[in-house]
Each structure stands twice: as C-alpha cells, then as structure tokens.
C-alpha cells in the first residue's frame, strides 16, 4: 500500500478536533450546573454535577401524564430513525433502479418530479401538508410520522449516481446468464450497493432520529414524544425569567448520540466489506 506520512495524521487530527471539540464541550458542560453554564459558557473540563444531572435526565417523568420518560422518548426516536432509514433505502433504491436500468417513457420527467422535492422545505408547505394528513386520517400515527418524510429525493438521487457508475458489463453478463430485472436487482445490484446503503442508512437514520417540527405538528398525544422534543422543551424557557437547564439539555443530547453512534459503529464494518465486495 501507499506510504503513510505523519502529515496525513496531522490533517485528520485537526479535522477531528474541529468537529469533535464542540461535542466534547457539550459532554463536559453537562456535568456543570445550569447557572455556571449560563454565566461562564461552555466548559472543557469536567464538573461535579454530572451524576445528579444524568440521574435526573434518566429517571425524570415528564409531561402532563407523567408518562414521558427517557425510555418512551428513546423508543419513539428509534422508530423514527429505523422506519425512516429503512423506508428510504427501499423506496429510493427501487426508484433509482427503474430510472437507470429501464428504457421507458417519462423517465426523465419522473426523475425531475422526484428531484423537485428537494426544493420546497416543509416549513413552507406545512399548513397544506397538515390538511392532507388530516384528510387521510394519519394524524397521531407512526405512518403519518414517517411516510410523508420519505417524499424526498436524496436517496433516489444518490442511488441513481451510484447505479450509473456500475459497469455495464455486469448487466450484459447477467442477461447472458438469463437474469431478469428482479433477479438482477436482488442478486447483483443490492449486494453491490452495500457500502452505499451503509452510508445512506447512517445519514437517514440520524435524519429520522433528529426530526422535530413534523412530529410536533402531527401528534397531540404525549405517547409520541421523541428525544428531540424533550431537548427542545428544556431549552425553551421564557427568556430572561428563567435560566434554561442547559446541563440537562446537554446531557440528553449526549445520551441521544449513543444510538446513532452505535449505528455508525455497526455500519463501519460494511464499509470495509463493501471494499472487498466491489473488488470482485
């Protein structure tokens, strides 16, 4: 392999510091009191309030019903993360496959129709979107929380790019072997896309995990509370009259990073597999 120069490590260390120090400071700050954070800003050294904060965050029973626990919020966030990531990969791989591997009318039009979803953010169409959901009786349901978010083009566009760069010889060979469209898709393309699927899974899982505005609008039942709403609600106090519980928000944010990071670690392996896979 290539020679590794210390310079490469230097760049990586600098980049990692730039990205990670803020997160580290969030972790450290979560062990200080809210008033200290309010008066002094972020901390880079640990404080002595950590245990109390994390205990409170983990055991606190919030909400009107008292049912809003860390566990409930975790469950809902996980449903959002997995539901969104899996749904997105399935839908967008299929659509991209049709757009790249089939000769049919309107392919370009369809691509642009899907692509256009990147161009109008949810905040703008939020009122009519709500009306549509209400007419379809999807308010207060997991379907209503997840499916509308799937209407975005990122995944389709990404897989289109990848499929286009897959060598044509593969399809030629498959056709000589007599493989039909389904067989080619399942047996050749899906295994080939592992690295890409891993990348998009991580991104989409985090996207679903971090949703805030849509669940807020769509649900009126505390049993749909997510971690993100918990965090926002802590920070959202009457400016000036109260000091937000910064420590709790940081603690909850740190805890909320654990599942996505686990996803990253697990899918890391697929990155390496992907390498050997495409090497065939």
């Amino acid at each position: 392999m290539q020679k590794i120069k210390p310079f490469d490590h230097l760049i990586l260390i600098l980049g990692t510091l730039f990205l990670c120090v803020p997160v580290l400071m969030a972790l450290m700050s979560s062990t200080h009191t809210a008033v200290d954070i309010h008066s002094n800003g972020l901390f880079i050294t640990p404080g002595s309030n950590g245990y109390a904060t994390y205990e409170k965050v983990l055991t606190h029973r919030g909400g009107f019903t008292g049912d809003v626990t860390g566990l409930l919020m975790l469950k809902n966030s996980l449903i959002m993360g997995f539901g969104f990531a899996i749904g997105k990969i399935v839908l967008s791989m299929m659509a991209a496959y049709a757009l790249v591997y089939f000769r049919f009318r309107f392919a370009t039009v369809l691509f642009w129709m899907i692509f256009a979803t990147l161009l109008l953010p949810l905040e703008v169409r939020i009122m009519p979107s709500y009306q549509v959901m209400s007419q379809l009786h999807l308010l207060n349901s997991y379907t209503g929380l997840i499916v509308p978010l799937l209407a975005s083009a990122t995944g389709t566009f990404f897989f289109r790019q990848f499929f286009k760069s897959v060598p044509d010889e593969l399809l030629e060979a498959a056709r000589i072997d007599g493989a039909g469209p389904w067989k080619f898709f399942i047996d050749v393309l899906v295994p080939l896309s592992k690295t890409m699927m891993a990348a998009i899974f991580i991104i989409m899982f985090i996207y679903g995990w971090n949703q805030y505005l849509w669940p807020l609008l769509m649900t009126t039942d505390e049993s749909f509370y997510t971690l993100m709403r918990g965090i926002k609600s802590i920070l959202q106090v009457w400016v000036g009259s109260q000091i937000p519980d910064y420590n709790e928000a940081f603690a909850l944010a740190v805890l909320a990073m654990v599942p996505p990071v686990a996803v990253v670690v697990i899918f890391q392996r697929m990155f390496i597999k992907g390498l050997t896979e495409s090497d065939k």
Partner: protein
Amino acid sequence: MTDTPLSAQGPTAPSFLHRLRDWWSGETANPVKRVQFGHGLTPWLFVLPQLAVVVIFFYWPSAQAVTSSFYIEDPFGFGSTFVGMENYADALGSKEYLSTAWFTAFFCVVVTALALGIGLLLAVKADKVIRGAESYKTLLISVYAIAPPVAGLIGMMFFDMHMGPFTRLFAFFGHELRVGVDYWDTTIALITISVWKQIPYNFIFFLSGLQSVPVSVREAALIDARSGWRRFKDVTLPLLAPTAFFLLIINITYTMFDTFPIIDVIVKDKPANNPMTLVYKVYLDGFKGNDIGGSSAQSVILMVVVAALTVLQFRFLERRVHYG
C-alpha cells in the same frame, strides 16, 4: 440532464419542439446505460412506491402552497383577496429582498466550497491511513448525530458576544467580534457553524465513494502516477465524480434550505440587520408572521431559481462526470 450536447445530434440543430419531445420521451435517444431492460410494467412497479409518496405528500400540499401565492389570505381561512402577481412584485421589488438574495448566493458558494473541500480532504486521508482509521471515521461521522437544537446552542455559545471562546480568540488578534450586531461577524459565525454541521455528511459519502474504488484500480494507479497529487487528480477524482456531483447538488440545497435554524439560533430569533438567507425570510414571514401568500410567493421564486440552477448544473457539469 444526461443527454449528449446538441452538437452531437447532428450538424443542424433540431428545432425546439423536437428537442422538447426528445426530452419528454426520456433518455431513449441517449440512454443512461448502453444496455437496459425494455419497456413494460416492471419499471413502473419499481418507481411507483416512491412516486406515490411524492405525489400524495409533496405535490398535493405543494400545489396548495403555490395557489396561495396568488392570494393574500387570512391564515385561519376566513378571508382572502386574489392579488395576482402582487405577492411576487412585493418580494422582488424590495431592496432588502435583493440584498438577501445576494447574501444567499455568497453564503451558498462559500459554505458549499468549504464543506465539500474539507469533507473530501478528510475522506481521502481517512481512506489512506491504516493506524487509527476506525477511530477517525467513527469520530468524524458521529458528530453528525448531535441533536440540531443543541448543535445550534453550542454554536451560539462559541460565538457569544461576552464569553464565547471564539470571541476571545478574535480579541487576542485584536478584533472585537460582535456576532448579532456586526453583519460580517455574524456571517463568519454562520459560515463556521454551517460548514461544521455539513462536513460529516460529505465525509461519509466521499468515504463510501472511495471505498468502492476497486483495489486493482488503485494498484494500477500507484504504478502509473508517482506523485500523490497526480494520482488523486487523474485517478481518484474521476472515480469520485458521480459522488461529488451528487454532493455538490445536495450541499447547495442544504445551504439554501436547511441552514435557517442555524441562523435563527445565532441571531436569537431577531434577525435585525444581520445577514439572512432567502429561506430564513420565508420562514420569518410565513411561519412566524403568518403571511401565507407572501411567503408562498417567495418560496415559488426560490424554487424556480434553484431549479433553474440545478438544471444548468445537470446540463453542464454532469456531462463531465464519467460514469462507470
């Protein structure tokens, strides 16, 4: 679009209608792949789920939003006045709107360039090193998982006028950083935080692109091109082009449409005369100010501009992207 340039279609340029028909009927004339499956129902079956979701949950509500742009209406739906293009004229005729548009363009170029550049650099290095590679990758990607409201809060605290570490750093170099008061100071904060948020995204996709470069190609490259830069430019970059093109478009839409929560946090939900993007203005007028007609018109303008830009990029940039 991926069709070949006009000149390739023959010595005489075809009529506009002809070209439109070609475009409409898909990529039959210039297929994406040399080999493709034929017509039939199968492609429709594959594309249908996505299409259904897009039509029901995007086009249906969006059509209503576009209709609103021709009205000035009471948000609760009791009264409305048809005003034709007035909402558009109001937006485009305002001096503030134009300066916001210029800032948006500037912001877009800087954030996209920095986020892509740094993301690519880190991905290339992470792909290269062996020792500690796993840790670097995990750390760099994980940052993406931080909750957006907390990310915003951290950014705000870093740039706090009275106690932010960056404010102290700038003071050390003799500059008094007043984010929220000074236009360009706020710009620095917005760019830094927006780039910070987006690097992991670019990193992960560049890395997956690099990982799928076959080892045989790399080894060949190692023999052919001695210098690292040449190897990167002649071998790695072309192989990354499809990913890079994807990321370019995504980063532009990110800066355009997804950075407004960062702006909201940094200006403490009072933009005053601080820089803002066009979408933040839409958010301000529509979501916070309940001016449905005005904000819809602004969104439509934005949509048309970004769509046009994107079409141009597909036409002129994607031609240079070599697939497979």
